[in-house]
């Protein structure tokens, strides 16, 4: 990992099109400004990792029984309807 030290208002370039600026430093919090092209996603790392992990889990590993899934939903919906009556 490349470690750089920056002061407020100083910036870092990543490649030609990504810029990170130290906007403000207050106590132990750093406010960062990020400029990047649209197709580069920017996320807080822990949020990104959580979504990424869940997407990996969600990607189908084997064929699924769509009918069985719908049956479960239908059961839930019809029990809602009978509660409303």
């Amino acid at each position, binding site marked *: 990992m490349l470690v750089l030290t920056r002061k407020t208002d100083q910036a870092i370039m990543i490649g030609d099109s990504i810029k990170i600026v130290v906007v403000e430093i207050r106590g132990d919090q750093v406010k960062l400004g990020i400029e990047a092209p649209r197709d580069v*996603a*920017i996320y807080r790392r822990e949020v990104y990792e959580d979504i990424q992990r869940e*997407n990996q889990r969600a990607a189908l590993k084997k064929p699924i029984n769509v009918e069985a899934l719908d049956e479960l939903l239908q059961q839930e919906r019809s029990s809602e309807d009978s509660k409303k009556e």
Partner: protein
Amino acid sequence: MKLETAAFGLVEVKEHEVIHFTSGILGFPDFRRYVLLTQENTLFKFLQAVDDQELTFVLIMPELVRSSYSCRLSEEHAEELGLEHAEHAEVYCIVTIPDNLADMTVNLQAPVIINVKQRLAKQVVLMDSHYHTRHNVLEEMQQSAFEQKRESSYSDQPTRDAQSGV
């Protein structure tokens, strides 16, 4: 082209049906081309990668799970998807199906937004903390039904919208 899919077996897909993701599904950055598969008798849709027939995601409309679901797109994301009006967008959330089907969960925090007209799509991450990545589908549906019953006895209350962004 023909794809052997996990959801519906062998499927014929036309080029004009292909949806282009502006950036990939998070964790799958190299796959940008998908088709949306569905059939009449199911509430689920399937996001099938065109370039890897083994890559499939199960989708559901979030309001079927949580009736109060709503999200706002940032201007940048709306522009990225060529969306001028909300009606041009379809919103789906990815479902994780474990071995015990009844334990299926849905990721309400990172919906897939599709501009059907322009065949553009993106998975956006909502900043609002009351959505996370693993909502139990059947429990949510029960809870939604309960809340709908309760709210129908109160006057309209404002709902919070989850904003997309970082």
